[in-house]
């Protein structure tokens, strides 16, 4: 295996008193879709923006294609494409114009007509940016990230705020990038996104990478436990649920009890019996196969969306 395409070593970044990054390290190989998964404020965007050359780290090393993003200037920018978390275009710029405009800045250019078709924007080619829906704007942002046929693509929360249908469309596009063997760094706080799209995932929390591996490896690290979420008629105070058969841990989030169990059937039978004995009632019960959410809960004691 050659030198990683993206290399991050011990990255630190503070904004005033807030420490956004506290020693982030990871490496991304050629052709890999790598995910940074974490809640808002975990440090994902700071990391990506340092790698895009938009921010300066306080300490640490960031290299993309062997180049320092901050100091390599145009040579570096020719190699990358990016979808920023917060960005915009002039309202009165047409879709086709936006693509052609950005394409002209680069030496290596993709065919903008093909991009329009690929991102289902052909019918909107003459529409003003202000007239596009959220999903269309995001598809345009993705198309613009590819106008220079980049070696590395950074996608900072590309599906945030989009409805499920549009989100799935974006997933298809990212999967296409994966098939094309583009190196992609994706940040997200959607579990399903990381699980479906990423070859490897770094779980980030409070400026640190707290777990790193393939989604399968990470889920295996949670010992294949099933997550059981229950809501009860009356709240519990005595920690009864943690003592149920098969339960390895139990936490409460906004009135929902989240249990992890290695033997779900036995746990559920025990739960029902216990509740009957206490005169309490089960309002809802949901079971989930192990996910990255469980890994995050195990490692931090919090849910991703908290």
């Amino acid at each position: 295996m050659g030198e990683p395409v993206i290399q991050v070593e011990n990255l630190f970044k503070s904004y005033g008193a807030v420490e956004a990054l506290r020693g982030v390290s990871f490496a991304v190989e050629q052709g890999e879709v790598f995910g940074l998964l974490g809640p808002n404020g975990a440090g994902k965007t700071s990391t990506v923006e340092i790698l895009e050359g938009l921010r300066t780290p306080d300490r640490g090393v960031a290299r993309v294609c062997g180049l320092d993003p901050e100091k390599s200037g145009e040579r570096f920018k020719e190699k990358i494409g990016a979808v920023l978390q917060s960005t915009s275009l002039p309202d009165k710029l047409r879709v086709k114009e936006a693509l052609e405009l950005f394409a002209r800045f680069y030496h290596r250019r993709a065919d903008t007509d093909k991009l329009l078709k690929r991102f289902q924007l052909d019918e909107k080619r003459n529409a003003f940016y202000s007239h596009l829906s959220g999903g269309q704007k995001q598809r345009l942002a993705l198309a613009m990230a590819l106008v220079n046929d980049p070696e590395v693509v950074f996608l900072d929360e590309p599906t945030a705020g989009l409805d499920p249908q549009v989100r799935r469309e974006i997933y298809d596009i990212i999967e296409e990038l994966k098939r094309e063997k583009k190196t992609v760094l994706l940040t997200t706080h959607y579990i399903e996104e990381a699980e479906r799209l990423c070859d490897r995932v770094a779980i980030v929390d409070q400026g640190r990478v707290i777990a790193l591996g393939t989604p399968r490896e990470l889920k295996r690290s949670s010992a294949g436990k099933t997550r059981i979420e229950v809501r009860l008629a009356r709240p519990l105070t005595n920690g009864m649920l943690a003592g149920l058969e098969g339960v390895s841990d139990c936490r409460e989030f906004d009135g929902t009890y989240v249990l992890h169990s290695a033997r779900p059937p036995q746990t559920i039978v025990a739960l029902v019996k216990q509740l009957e004995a206490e005169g309490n009632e089960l309002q809802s019960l949901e079971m989930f196969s192990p996910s990255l959410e469980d890994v995050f809960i195990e490692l931090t004691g919090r849910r991703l969306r908290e």
Partner: protein
Amino acid sequence: MGGTWTLTKMRVRLAMRNRAFFFFSLVMPLIFLFGAVTFLGRGRKEWVGYILGAILTTTVMGSFWGLSVQLVTFREQGILRRFRLAPLGAGPMLASSILSNYFLVIPVVVFEILVCRWAFHMQSWGNLWAIFLLVTVGSATFSALGLIVASVTNTMQETQMINNLIWMGFLFLSGATIPLAIFPAWLQRVALFIPAQYLATGLESSAAKMATGYEVLEDVAALLLGLFVAFEVSRQLFRWEPEAKVPRNAKLWVLAALVPFLIFGAWESTTGNRLNRIQQNFQTLRGRAMSMPMPPAH
């Protein structure tokens, strides 16, 4: 250079799609022109050249307003940070602002000259070469000054407030609205340090007195030097990100942008040549007015 030209074309295209641009860049100067010729010039065609000089000055100075507002809007909306990802530096971004503004100002200037000549029967075309030179350099200089304002302000409100203050100074101390010659001597000396005064004096001389390019060379030189310094200062202070802080040494950079005009002002104040020229321009205007009968009242 390719990036600058690409951005310039985009900016021109965007401006042409903006109704506010048409109002502020074309309709408003024409309203001023009609108002000035009708009420100040009282329909006397001898004054039209002088009024044209003043109107051209405000048109060219308007570059200052539009660009600062546009740049701050682009920064606030996160548009600039998208451009930052492309292989573009601050230089092409700023240069394209100045160039596009120039291409948008030129048709307005031509239109104003044509209106003065054909609708208001201006006695001569003025020295078109000198006018072209001053409009070209002036538009770039005031654009660059506007870009500095955009770089040192954080919000649109701040930009509007500072623009208003500077605009008032430019408008009333340049001679474009009130002839400098009627001001007290000390205020005339203060005006020597105002960038807009060089543009107004030059344009009034070339439009009303047929001053040649050589005769307005001092005005052009002051504006040109101002342009180089202001452009470099705006490049140094340029911020792509909405949350990027104004550099600590920004005040020093802003002062540096004024250095050319401080030098020219001090020089002119010592020699007194410019003050004499301003007086002569005004006396010529008054002389013309005195020698001509007032149009009959209807």
